[in-house]
């Protein structure tokens, strides 16, 4: 019966704890539950992104593990590029719609879907198919509003402070929905790099110290669950792609509570499975996640 506790409630509970409770109950209950469920799941097969997402999420314990009744949820897909779903530069729209529906079925009050795009947002939202699919599923799809950032102290090694989108800071549940792609600078763009879509300012600066930037940002923006779309992946020419020759179809969704484990597993889907982004080891050292996903409770399912 226990479910994830919203940030708002958590604050209330912490206040109660300050008043005399010895144990912070939300951490306790979450830890008990997590021990019996896998941390990371890989679902493969079939020809339906919807079924893959449903299988992966239910193996993780269902969306109610992350979303409580009345929660405000942010689903953050990659809508960065003026590309069609077949070109595999943006998250699969059907996968996004499935997650939105699952959140609403779990009792979410609102589900927000947005991305700070690289190409013109009006074009990417339409061309990716994500805006239409997410709206039809019941999400509130909005363009990023430059006025709604908040300066956040990151105290990272490279990033000391940065503007983070307010919806990210204010939501109860944060769901990361990247697509697995090749990337010229960071070799792979997976769940960690997807957070560049929730920050303001000149993102070009991240590229001068990409791995450290992503680590610094990850310490501040922590998703409750990561659902990585690898139905189609870009194996070269990323992150923009273009030609369908660059697309492979592993028909896979990897979901997990540890985004480093998700990223490490996603790397194995590429033709050169040994190429991994440099931040995986850095994240392990800092305790942000476990790149050796096999050491975690993990599950492979065929759909």
């Amino acid at each position, binding site marked *: 019966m226990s479910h994830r506790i919203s940030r708002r409630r958590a604050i209330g509970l912490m206040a109660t704890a300050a008043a005399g409770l010895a144990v912070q109950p939300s951490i306790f209950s979450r830890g008990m539950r997590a021990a019996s469920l896998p941390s990371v799941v890989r679902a493969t097969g079939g020809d339906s992104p919807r079924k893959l997402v449903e299988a992966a999420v239910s193996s993780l314990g269902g969306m109610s593990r992350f979303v409580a009744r009345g929660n405000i949820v942010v689903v953050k897909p990659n809508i960065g590029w003026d590309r069609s779903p077949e070109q595999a530069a943006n998250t699969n729209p059907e996968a996004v719609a499935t997650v939105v529906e699952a959140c609403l079925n779990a009792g979410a009050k609102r589900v927000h879907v947005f991305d700070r795009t690289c190409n013109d947002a009006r*074009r990417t939202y339409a061309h990716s198919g994500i805006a239409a699919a997410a709206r039809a599923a019941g999400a509130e799809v909005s363009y990023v509003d430059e006025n709604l950032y908040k300066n956040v102290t990151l105290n990272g090694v490279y990033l000391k402070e940065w503007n983070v989108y307010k919806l990210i800071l204010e939501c109860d549940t944060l769901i990361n929905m990247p697509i697995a792609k090749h990337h010229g600078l960071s070799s792979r763009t997976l769940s960690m790099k997807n957070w560049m879509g929730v920050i303001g300012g000149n993102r070009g600066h991240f590229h001068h110290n990409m791995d450290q930037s992503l680590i610094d940002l990850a310490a501040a923006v922590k998703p409750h669950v990561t659902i990585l779309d690898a139905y189609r992946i870009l194996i070269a*020419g990323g992150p*923009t792609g273009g030609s369908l020759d660059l697309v492979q179809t592993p028909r896979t969704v990897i979901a997990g509570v540890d985004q480093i484990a998700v990223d490490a597993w996603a790397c194995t889907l590429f033709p050169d499975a040994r190429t991994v982004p440099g931040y995986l080891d850095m994240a392990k050292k800092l305790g942000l996640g476990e790149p050796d996903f096999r050491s975690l409770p993990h599950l492979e399912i065929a759909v």
Partner: protein
Amino acid sequence: MTIGWRGARRAVQLSVLAAFTYTFIQAEYRGLDVVRGWWSAFTSSDPLCLTAVVAGSRSWPLGLSAWWLLAIAVGLSPPFLARAFCGWVCPLGTLNHAVSAARERSRIKWAQRTASRYWKYRFVILALVLSFFGVPLAFWFSSLPLLYRSATLAVHPAVNLAGQRLSSGLLSWHEATGAEPLYSGYQWLRDSVLSFHQPYFQHAGLNIVVLLVVLGINVLAFRMWCRSFCPLGGFLGIIGHRSLLRRTIQPACNHCAACVKACPADMGATPEEWNPSECLLCFRCAAACRKQAVEFSWRSPWRGTLRPVNVPRRDLSVIAIAGIAILAASRLNRISPAPNGRLIRPPGALPEPEFLARCLRCGECMRICPTNAIQPAGLAAGWEGAWTPVIVPETGYCELECNLCSRICPTGALKRVTAGERKTLKLGTAVIDRGRCLPHAMAIPCLVCEEHCPVTPKAIWVREKDEILRDGTYVKLGQPIIDPQRCVGCGVCEHKCPVQGSPAIYVRSFGETRAPASFFLSEFPAKDGDWGTAHDPYSS
């Protein structure tokens, strides 16, 4: 009944102005790659521009849409309806009328100037003569492109900026007080009123000045722009100097000259005089007459005496000399045979001389461009090229998946290209400034340009290199290298380059599809269409 005509005129004027505003608002990009022909209906209804396009391009412009039939209709109207187009339809005329009427009602009581009506005839003759040689006086000053351009480059950015300031004020107020209606107001402005991006156009101030001068001179004399300067008005006046329509004075006239005073145009000195080339068919004279002695009726255009458009012959020689001088001046700046490297034309642009002969400088492509990449040229294309569209990657890049500008262009100066054809067009070629590029010059990792490059395979490839650092250690990093044959010149690399001020990668126009001779490699990457002919478009 006469009051009825006046009311009808006002209703038509306001409806047409509303229609103009509606087509203007519709042309805002909203995420769908849709272009409707009627969005450029107003710039397509200009018979002077149509004539100048045909004269300048020496061909019946096949690129013109069916909406140019409107221009022919407008051009044929003066013998039947005098300059009713100016009096009833022209949206700039309506604005001029409003300025003059406001001045009339105000307490400003300085003497009205008498404005010579002949300037517009001199002007339109000069414009027509020069249009054969590609000098765009008609395009710059004919009322319809002038109004669309002013709305795009000056009015809309100003209004949107004001609205943006208002909305951010509401947001700050909401943050200070927590009042929800303020946030709702903010959201409403953001989502339903304001543009997605604040549009920015270079030398916007110049466009504001031009518009203010055109509108402002109407306080000196009633509709002074229309009666003295508008080349389209002059053009219609010449067409309509033999008119089927007549204004006649009935015997009841007591020569009070109330009609003469009421005329906003230039009917003459006595009630009997009338001039179809000047008459706006506004019926102010009929409304002013207490004896109901003013009538309009149809007669044979060759009967009776009418004052013809009378430009003195001496003026014609002055116009000829002025024209030659202007032409000479316009050619003097072509001392360099090489095209201006910064002159990056939007996709579908015809070779330069043809492009200049057809481009109305109306600004519709700048209006619809989703990325604000298309800017009015200053002097980059010679002074005749002022206000033609040019891509400035600093403000925006050309989106590879988008062909909207080529579809809205009313004259085919930007030849209509399909989304597929557009991807084969090369607008120019990017080059890297290795003295500024971070991985090349300072051993700092970057590759933002490579990340955004939209073509397959990418026109920017990465050379792995071990660079030594100051402390003696080595760093392995990727340096961007351009493949000039792959590059399409979209400018996204320049737009996104983190090196501020003067980007380390930038596009120049060489190698553009419409000018293959400008490429430094003999093997030109053109594939489809009739673009790849090896002629130099700058040597016509």
